[in-house]
């Protein structure tokens, strides 16, 4: 888009926004109790992009600081407000974002990228490859501390340099086969805003509040953030890419699914995020509401602590015991009862597609077989029906996080499933950070936890999901304490393999190792279900969520039908 016209149009667009909202406000004021009359700018029939109002009852953006926020919604917010070098397209293939083109050199150890020219941050300052270089170098420098959150995006990166304003050269320690899918996860930060906070040890990067309105480079500017309540974004006129048709969007947090769906029905919001199967069915009956359901980018699993050095309950490390657990759990029943059948069965943490091993099938429920496995191991049932292994009862604590959604029901179903094979489970639900401390603790020693329930994002590129089980991620994102040198070696090999044909078999082998060792026993891929009001076009084109953490395209294209 022509720079001159967009900045000249800046003033005009603002007035139109105010006018629309004022008109909507007047209609709200005069029709205080009009049924179905949505407040805000959702008035039907007006021209222009409009403001898209999202509601979410499950997740909550935790921070505006990308070094701090880990929540899935937060990551999507960063995607929309910060430039990234590359992004995913509708076909789930890597395509350019801030970087327009790139080449590998030096046997894959160098990645040279050309970035957008004459780009600006929302405050008018120049957005150049120097910002990218600064961000990446800072991330590398403190990756064991304050910038650990970026760690999975810069694996193997040694340094970055910007010989000129539109060129970025990245140097890796080994062939960077997965560099692109990794770089996709790194938001480029404005150096002029963040550099003053580095200090001597980088700790300031995490404590910097990054108050809204933040200096943004993506298609939207993050203008308002009230934690646990609302986040508001408006179109960034300085965006280097295709301008979004939306004038802005916002996300409101709801404490209950019913309130969320009622709001959608009443037109108080335009779209609902992170819905489950039950809600999908509820929405299907509603007038003027569209629903899209399909496989999503999240897998749910039973996590089993895999710390080889653990001293108690060592039977948990036995793959046969893990297989017995897997056989006792009826994933189809879980799918039917929790997700009303909308979830996608899968055996692996890798999304069903190019890299998922087709020979691996989900473990079929087989209670008799599970019991037989445990009988063969000599773990007899005691008087109370609980098996005894190595002198102590097979009685475990199952940890769940409140952020998981329906955690009470999941706990109930898993407890019942494992009870069928003589394993007693005591479920405890706790908040996200307590959960993380418990599962990895104490202090990342991985000795406290036994069983837990977890869900992780999986991306089109399997690298991220595979990295979760590496020894390198112990103390980082490795949750189970699994550490296997052979696995790590294979992981590094696939990470440096640029040729996809050669990479696939390695990825298959890694999946087979995970299937056998089972640090996570996967239930299914959660469905991605969205609901939106019918007057919005272009919605629901992206696998996963339209408010995407993977791509800027969905929100650029969504607009109100005139």
């Amino acid at each position, binding site marked *: 888009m022509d720079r001159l016209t967009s900045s000249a149009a800046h003033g005009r667009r603002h007035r139109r926004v105010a006018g629309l909202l004022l008109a909507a406000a007047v209609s709200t004021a005069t029709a205080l109790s009009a049924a179905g009359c949505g407040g805000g700018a959702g008035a039907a029939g007006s021209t222009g992009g409009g403001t898209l109002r999202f509601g979410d009852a499950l997740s909550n953006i935790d921070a505006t600081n990308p070094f701090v926020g880990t929540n899935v919604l937060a990551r999507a917010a960063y995607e929309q407000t910060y430039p990234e070098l590359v992004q995913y397209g509708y076909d789930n293939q890597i395509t350019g974002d801030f970087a327009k083109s790139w080449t590998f050199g030096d046997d894959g150890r160098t990645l040279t990228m050309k970035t957008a020219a004459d780009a600006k941050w929302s405050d008018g300052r120049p957005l150049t490859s120097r910002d990218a270089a600064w961000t990446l170098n800072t991330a590398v420098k403190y990756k064991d501390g304050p910038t650990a959150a970026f760690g999975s995006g810069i694996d193997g990166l040694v340094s970055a340099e910007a010989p000129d304003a539109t060129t970025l050269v990245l140097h890796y320690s080994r062939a960077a086969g997965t560099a692109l899918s990794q770089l996709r996860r790194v938001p480029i930060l404005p150096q002029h805003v963040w550099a003053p906070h580095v200090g001597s040890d980088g700790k300031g990067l995490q404590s910097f509040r990054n108050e809204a309105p933040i200096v943004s480079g993506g298609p939207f500017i993050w203008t308002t953030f009230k934690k646990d309540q609302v986040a508001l974004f408006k179109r960034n006129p300085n965006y280097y890419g295709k301008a979004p048709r939306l004038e802005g969007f916002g996300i409101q947090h709801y404490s209950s699914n019913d309130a969320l*769906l009622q709001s959608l029905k009443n037109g108080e919001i335009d779209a609902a995020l992170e819905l489950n199967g039950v809600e999908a069915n509820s929405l299907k009956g509603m007038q003027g509401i569209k629903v899209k359901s399909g496989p999503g980018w999240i897998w749910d699993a039973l996590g089993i602590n895999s710390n080889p050095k653990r001293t108690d309950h060592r039977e948990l490390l036995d793959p046969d015991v893990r297989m017995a657990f897997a056989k006792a759990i009826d994933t189809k029943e879980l799918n039917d009862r929790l997700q009303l059948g909308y979830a996608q069965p899968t055996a692996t943490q890798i999304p069903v597609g190019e890299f998922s091993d087709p020979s691996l099938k989900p473990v079929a429920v087989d209670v008799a077989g599970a019991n037989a496995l445990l009988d063969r191991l000599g773990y007899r049932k005691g008087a109370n029906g609980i098996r005894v292994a190595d002198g102590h009862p097979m009685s475990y604590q199952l940890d769940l996080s409140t952020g998981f959604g329906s955690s009470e*029901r999941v706990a*109930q179903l898993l407890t019942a499933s494992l009870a069928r094979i003589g394993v007693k489970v005591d479920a*405890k639900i*706790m908040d996200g950070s307590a959960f993380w401390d418990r599962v990895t603790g104490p202090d990342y020693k991985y000795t406290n936890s036994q069983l837990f329930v977890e869900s992780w994002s999986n991306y089109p590129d399997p690298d991220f999901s595979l990295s979760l089980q590496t020894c390198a991620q112990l103390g980082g994102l490795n949750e189970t304490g699994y550490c296997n040198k052979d696995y790590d070696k294979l992981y590094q090999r696939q990470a440096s393999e640029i040729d996809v044909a050669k990479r696939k078999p390695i990825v298959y082998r890694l999946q087979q190792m995970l299937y056998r060792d089972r640090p996570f026993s996967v239930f299914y891929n959660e469905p991605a279900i969205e609901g939106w009001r019918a007057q919005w076009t272009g919605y629901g084109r992206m696998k996963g969520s339209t408010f995407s953490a993977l791509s800027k395209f969905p929100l650029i294209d969504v607009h109100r039908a005139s």
Partner: protein
Amino acid sequence: MSAPAKRPRPGSQLSWILRDPRSAVGAAVLALAVAVTVGAPLLTGYGPFDHAGQVFGAPSGAHPFGLDDLGQDVLTQVLYGGRISLLVGITAALVAAVIGGLVGISAGYFGGRADTVLMAVTDYTLIVPGIPLMIAIAAAFGSSLAMIVIMIGVLSWPQTARILRSQVRSVRERTYVRRASVLGVGPARMIRTHVLPQVAPLMIATTVLTVAQAIFVETALAFLGLGDPGRVSWGSMIYNAFDRGAVSAGAWWALIYPGVAVAVVVLACSLVGQAIEAKLNPRSRVPYLSGKRFTVEPVAAEHAAAAAAAPAAATPPLLAVEHLDVWMRNAAGDELHVVRDVSFSLGRADRFALVGESGSGKTTTLMSVLGLLPSNARVRGAIRYEGRDLLAGGEAGMRTVRWKEIAMVFQGSMNSFSPVHTVGAQIVEPMRLHNGASRRAARARAAELVGMVGLPATVLDRYPHELSGGMRQRAAIAMALACDPKVLLADEPTTALDAMVQAQILMLLRRLADELDIAVLLVTHDLASVSLLCGEAAVMQRGALIEQGTVDALYHDPKHPYTRELFGAALDIPVVDAATGKVVPA
């Protein structure tokens, strides 16, 4: 109210509780709730966690309450969930009862420093925010059932303690208790044999109410996700309906039935608690103001005919009571004939007394004149003021004569004055309302009136509790004169006053009646006041007027044996001259 000398039997009090329809229904519902939840396996073929059908299936023959978000039978969940909710409720209430009982009884019985310390602890526990603290503890230490029960119990005992303490304090003052303690019975035995049986009903009442409260708290904790995840309770059912979008899915049954279950049980507890509380605080007095008016019947046919036949009097008497009958319906539903065919009349400036023992119906007769009878009364006859029948005029008719024409002074022991308004405000009130007097004029008149009764004008700004009994009665007389009435009704105006003051009041009344030309209708059992104040009297016995005549005649020449007995029994009570303080010779 005097303290009973004998120790009431506790068992009798408890059985009464079952006879009150409210508590009977409440107790029955509670018993039923416990029965169905305990007997759940007999009532439903499903287990609470069985996959019984389709998620959010609608109510049907097989599933009368429908299915929930996991396809579990809601009726089964309500029954099994009730076990947890009721268990938590009852056990927590018992914990609260034990702690509260120990603290409250000890504080009330021992008093002194123990009381101060225990009450301080109670008060400080009360200021701790209950639900937030329970949330914090549940989140910190996990939420097992035992934890929840203890938490609720530990935070609920202060209310019980306070209530029991007041009860024990009043029990301690009773005669038989004091007697026993004087005899040297030790505190433990005293409490066990005397105090406990008396406070038992109250303890039951507060425990029952704590059950309701505890069930609420359990529901609240489960709703906030802090319940025991392994068990189903009514609270967890509401939570899951909330969390899993039952309503938006159209499955209202997943939300409504557990809520109704809680409401039913809590309501039952409230009913029982209310009934016990009503029994313990019986309102010994009938309300003086009620929505329903007493029934009025016209004069009996035979008397009406006679009256019509008789020649009309030249001027009707100022106040004439004609063939008045009053019946009162008691709590058991029986009608008591309280006033039987009473007739008498007063002329201008007459002073007439109705004399008799208590229960003779004289007060009721007096009350009838101004229509001040309670709603359970039935009246027949006529009360004519200046010829007009007041009873036939209805409440509106009565209001035209009240205070303006006929005013009243009540017993000296009564609170004729509202404690929260000044004496002056209450004297001024009828002047401004009935006569339309301005504030200044009314106040001036009020000052004049209190002066007439021998009180300083400063009394107008005082509150009733600041006046002595005698001063209050004088003020009541001043108030009665506020609208210049022609008739003054006086119901035992000197009862409960000192002998000296009694005489003064009577002299005052006599002087005022003389000066202001007011007719006085006095009701009394005190014959001395009769002779001092009145010229004529009527003797009433068991509702009937048995003899009427001048006071002199009644004293010296009684016709009826009862009159003879009554007047004869009166010793020559010396009458004291208010001015000189000397005995007036008979």
